[in-house]
């Protein structure tokens, strides 16, 4: 295979060089040679032949063929794991760029580059008024034009609405109930991504855990929690949440209230001089929440705290939900701040 390609290449080069020396003699003083096309009945002005340029085009097209063949050969020769993407790219890119070069030679040396003049299109005042006239005259038998046009418009509108109606089956229409669904309820255990139940003793300070409701769909937006343990003396939760953080363990919805990304960063250990407290951070737009104060926004574009889930520790030491979220989960919308009435998410 390789020897064949080498032989072909050598043959081609040989021919090219012979032609070039021959061409140099015959095509001397070629130049543009653009005669004025108008004199001799021609449309495109004449020019003298350019054998050398033709040779270049032939050589470049041959190169394109070689590259294209190279693509097929490398596709066939390699197994999927060993086939270098670079080789394929160079083959097909090389073929296309060889064609580009050939066409460039054609454009610059082989076709006559004329400059032609053309009138810009004009307006047509006469036809404009004729069109208006014929429309006016066509409607001259109608006496109640506005009413009829209005009726036609209403018909088009009604038909359009009817045609779009089936698209309403995409999802619930004007029912925001699904946004109130939560898989959490009092007593539900917190489990890890591998369904291992969390014990309070599994939660260490200075680190960050993702927890889910036991047995629920983990991809549901209201499922994931961030769980961190803080020094109980540092916790200052809003009023009415005094018993929501047993042993200093707090849990918040993991979905950012700004645009719905996951709160995936925990700033701990901290840089005591300027960032003295541990913080929960969303990597999408850097909304930053203070887990010690009910995940209030301390920085970034989020407009609401993260909803908090009250926790309790059962007799065996397992972490369980002690109720439902303090607010609706996820990015803000019209009704996100009204009192949540959570619907149990069927699992």
């Amino acid at each position: 295979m390789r020897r064949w390609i080498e032989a072909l290449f050598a043959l081609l080069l040989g021919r090219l060089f012979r032609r070039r020396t021959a061409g140099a003699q015959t095509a001397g003083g070629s130049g543009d040679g653009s005669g004025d096309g108008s004199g001799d009945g021609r449309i495109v002005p004449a020019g003298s032949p350019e054998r050398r340029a033709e040779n270049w085009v032939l050589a470049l097209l041959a190169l394109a063929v070689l590259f294209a063949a190279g693509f097929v050969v490398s596709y066939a020769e390699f197994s999927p794991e060993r086939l270098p993407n670079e080789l394929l790219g160079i083959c097909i890119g090389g073929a296309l760029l060889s064609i580009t070069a050939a066409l460039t030679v054609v454009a610059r040396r082989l076709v006559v580059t004329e400059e032609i003049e053309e009138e810009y299109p004009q307006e047509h005042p006469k036809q404009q008024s004729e069109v208006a006239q014929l429309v006016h005259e066509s409607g001259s038998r109608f006496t109640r034009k506005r009413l009829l046009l209005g009726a036609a418009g209403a018909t088009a509108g009604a038909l359009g609405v009817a045609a779009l109606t089936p698209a309403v089956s995409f999802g619930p229409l004007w029912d925001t109930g699904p946004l109130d669904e939560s898989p959490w309820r009092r007593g539900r255990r917190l489990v890890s991504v591998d369904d291992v139940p969390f014990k309070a003793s599994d939660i260490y300070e200075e680190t960050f855990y993702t927890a889910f409701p036991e047995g629920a769909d983990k991809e549901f937006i209201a499922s994931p929690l961030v769980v961190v343990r803080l020094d109980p003396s540092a916790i200052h939760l809003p009023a009415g949440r005094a018993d929501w953080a047993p042993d200093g363990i707090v849990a918040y919805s993991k979905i950012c209230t700004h645009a719905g990304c996951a709160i995936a960063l925990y700033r701990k250990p901290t840089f005591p001089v300027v960032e003295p407290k541990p913080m929960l951070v969303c990597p999408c737009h850097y909304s930053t929440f203070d887990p010690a104060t009910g995940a209030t926004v301390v920085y970034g574009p989020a407009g609401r705290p993260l909803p908090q889930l009250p926790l309790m520790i059962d007799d065996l030491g397992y972490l369980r939900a002690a109720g439902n979220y303090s607010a609706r989960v996820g990015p803000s919308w019209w009704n996100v701040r009204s009192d949540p009435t959570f619907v149990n998410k069927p699992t």
Partner: protein
Amino acid sequence: MSDPILEPVRFIDERTASAPLLKKALRYAFPDHWSFLLGEVALYCFILLILTGIYLTFFFDPSTAHTVYHGPYTELDGRTMSAAYKSVLDISFTYKAGLLIRQTHHWAADMFLAAIVIHLLRVFFTGAFRKPRELTWIVGLTLLFVSLLEGYLGYSLVDDLLSGMGLAIGYGVGLSIPIIGGPLMLLLFGAPFPGTPSFWPRMYIAHVLLIPLLLATLIGIHLALVAARHHTQFKESPRHTEKRLIGVPMFPGQAPRSLALMFGTWGVLFLMGGLFQINPIWQWGPFEPYLATNGAQPDWYLGWLIGALRLMPSFDVTVSHFTLIPNPFWGGALFPLVVIGILMAYPWLERKLTGDYRFHNLADRPRDAPNRTAFGVAFVFWVFAIFGFGAADRILVLWNIGYNTQLYIFRVGIWAFPAILFVLVRKLCRELQAAERIERAQHEAESEAEQEHAVLAGGAPPAPG
């Protein structure tokens, strides 16, 4: 003897009576200036996107059904993931040349939008949008914004971690539309994010059929409008006038150049697809709503939106217990709407302000219209500075400039710098104009003096020129 060209032409003309049109099309004049090729680059990117996209549809599976990966990429062996993500892993590792096509498709999308934006800047700064070409401008802008949506859907379909984060943000921005955002997003997604399983095939059919069809139609209209009014041209000589266009004919002059540009664009994109990695989705891993990664950046053409989302101060506009305007609305929805609105209205705004209602076939040089150029530079800077803030987290890592420091610099800078730039650029344009006037006056005085000298010397005045 039959003429091999004449025969088919006759065949066609006898059946369609199109020979006059064909003759006219072949001799359509293209102005000979490189900047008129930018739109063509965009067109050729679009064609390549269609071609590579067709190939990808043979192997892509638009399904969120769970599947366990066992394939050549051992790092993800045994991971549960969506069928969509698995099929893109297979395109990248299992099917030969799949990675090349996928990467070329992605690079072509990035270059498509880049070519459109640069083409738009050329059209803006040369005043080529003026009467009689406002419709071409409007259609072109629509193309740009539909293409943004198309690109966004394209990388969202893959269902890797980055694409899922992008989709989550899109959902969040959708929810932030005042009053109707919540029900609208639920209707569209079918359920709270990440939506019902049928959302994926719907997104897919939009990406591979509905939006490409819309884009192709808009491109057709755009080109038909260009051809109907012909290209603008620069006043390169006294022969270039508002009435007469000087150019290279479509055939034979322009055709090989244009084809060379097409193959060149494709060649470069395939080389990029082969040599330069883009969006290595296997490194991001599959998306889950509870996962996110730091340092995430969208494709370049959405950078302005992430910048705007990050730059907004923290507040939701509330009316009693109702949330009228959630925060993402400003950066994610209002900002692009303002940008598109200003651009769409610009030809009419300029006409109102300048009182210039004439036809324009001659393109301005930027200095010829100091107010437009100054406004354009300020406006572009405004958008691209907000874009730049989208990379603030990367700037922090690269040059250790605090994120906070950058935030305050940008919050002031995006307003202050455009204002300063407007004044400076306008002054620069006017000075360039003045310098030209002085040069012309000098030139005229010199040739006058020469003529006088010749008359005094008793000879005939020299021919001008």
